[in-house]
């Protein structure tokens, strides 16, 4: 086989073609491997996130079930700060709560209510009135009606 300028160029082109093909193949393979790895990583991240969300939801549901399982009372105790101040004066509270206020014993006297006097008395002897045409005396205003007694009964609502 003769070596000439023509064959030299042919070999040169062939080597260039092979080098280019090898380079392209390497780059393509690297890209494919990298892509596959990235895809796998994304899948793993998504699975981990889903597992975390499931665990959180499970814990929340368990807490709700636990609250619903209290058997003896529907009340949920909530602690809160109360104001240490009332509308009633403290000195009054102390007075009506001091030791001895519940001691049974004699209270104030109980008596039959006084009988109201008739509004106008009628004397047994009335002197004859002078016969005049004087204007009649104004009548004294009627006494106010007696107040109704306060009720004390069984504490019917």
């Amino acid at each position, binding site marked *: 086989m003769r070596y000439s300028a023509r064959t030299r160029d042919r070999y040169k082109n062939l080597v260039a073609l092979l080098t280019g093909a090898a380079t392209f193949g390497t780059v393509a393979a690297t890209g494919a491997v990298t892509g596959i790895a990235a895809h796998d990583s994304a899948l793993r991240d998504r699975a981990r996130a889903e597992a975390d969300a499931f665990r959180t939801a499970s814990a929340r549901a368990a807490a709700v079930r636990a609250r619903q399982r209290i058997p003896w009372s529907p009340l949920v105790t909530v602690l809160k700060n109360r104001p240490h101040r009332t509308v009633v004066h403290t000195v009054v509270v102390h007075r009506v709560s001091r030791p001895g206020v*519940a001691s049974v014993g004699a209270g104030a006297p109980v008596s039959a209510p006084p009988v109201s006097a008739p509004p106008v008395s009628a004397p047994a002897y009335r002197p004859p009135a002078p016969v005049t045409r004087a204007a009649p005396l104004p009548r004294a205003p009627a006494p106010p009606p007696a*107040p109704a*007694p306060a009720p*004390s009964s069984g504490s019917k609502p």
Partner: protein
Amino acid sequence: MSAARWSALGTYVHLATGDPADLPGARRIAEDVLAEVDRTCSRFRGDSDLVRANGRPGRWTPVDPLLVAAVRVAVEAAAVTDGLVDPCLGRALVNLGYDRDLHAVHRRPHPADRPPPPPQTGCWRDIGLDPDGALRVPEGCALDLGATAKAWAADLLAAEVVDQLGLHVLVSLGGDIRIDGPDTPRPGWTVRVTESPDDVEGEVVALAGGGLATSSTRARRWRTRHGVAHHVLDPRTRRPTDEHWRTVTATGATCVAANVASTAALVLGRGAVPWLREHGVTARLVRRDGHLTRTGGWPAAPSTGRCRP
């Protein structure tokens, strides 16, 4: 004298002052005091301090000092009656179906009572009280202040009116009466004693001051699976009393003292009269059949010795 009447604490309020001009101011104070007592001492309000403390038996609960004062009085009532007037009957009442306002109990289509809790006497001794505002309900108990809180509220209300306005006042909270005022001549107060607010009959008496309370098994009744129950429980059995007496009216230096005497008499039944006499209590008792008995200085009725059966 003038009077106002309205509803609070699940019952009626009757407030009277010597001068009609004083009534609006006294009523304003009364409404404030009763709202405060309801907010702290009610067994039927989910946001009350008593309900919060009952929900944490065995543990200290921060509460309003007003509730601590009310419970302290209830504990003293238990002590002076050796447990006949017991604040630890909350669970027994709930098991009998009295677990909400009585109007709501009456609206129930079916009775809601359950077997009574096991007897547990003397647990009132284990109630923890911190005057600065904390309460510990004993383990296994729930407090009910029905036997003393209303009478204590009457004492409190009257004292507050006297403290702020300096006038004579009479208050009746569902039959628990307190008369209070400055140390000047007192107006003549009269009281009509009946078994129910609807009764037109009854006995009118004059009372100069202090407390007078009527407790009756004829009021606050509801249906259970085993018949009709009433709200006065015997702490020894945790069941409603046997109604040997159906109504007792008693007097005392305070309204709480009067109410403690009337409630203890209902619980004691046949033993009530000697107990009242031993303690020097002036009282009027109505037996189941309507027969009247009086102790101490209760005046004899001019007409009859019986009530309607």
